[in-house]
């Protein structure tokens, strides 16, 4: 599999996926129950 960071599009998509993952992490593990 090609490294997504080889291309600008892959980098941006990776950043968006990471954003979504970190929001889920924040809501479910850091401030769960709020």
């Amino acid at each position, binding site marked *: 599999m090609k490294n997504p*960071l080889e291309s600008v599009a892959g980098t*941006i998509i990776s950043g968006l996926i*990471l*954003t979504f993952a970190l*929001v889920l*992490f924040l809501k479910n593990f850091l401030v769960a129950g709020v």
Partner: protein
Amino acid sequence: MELMPGIVRWIHLLSGITWVGLLYYFNLVQMAALKDAAADGTAAGITKHVAPRALFWFRWSAVVTWVAGAGLLGAGFTDAFLLRNGYEGIGIGAWLGTIMLFNVWVLIWPNQKKILGLVPADDAAKTSARRVAMLASRTNMMLSIPMLFFMANGLTHRAVLGL
């Protein structure tokens, strides 16, 4: 001293725009331009006159951004980096920004010095440095996307996150 946080936030934004703006310039403009310029023998114009100046502003604006950001967190600095007490969201942004600062000074700048001939390096070292600097720069571009999301929403607009 109500004015101080506003001034520090202003400095944080000005330097942050300079830093991330140059990061996007490197990734969206210079990398592709250098490839084309190398093909027609004009790369020296960029590597000699443009890149060193861009890298100067890039690495020092990164420092100013981090220091101003730390100042803005103030008493919440520890809570942010320990991801607790209402600082969880901005803390994620702070961690991402800190990783980016590390990449600038530990991976990008030392390798760029080899690429630009500011320190001695043979061809093999330059080839390796190009790869490391490129991937570190792309990593920072990727990290900037969630970093900016959490900077914008992590502390003052938490409703966006449903918090």
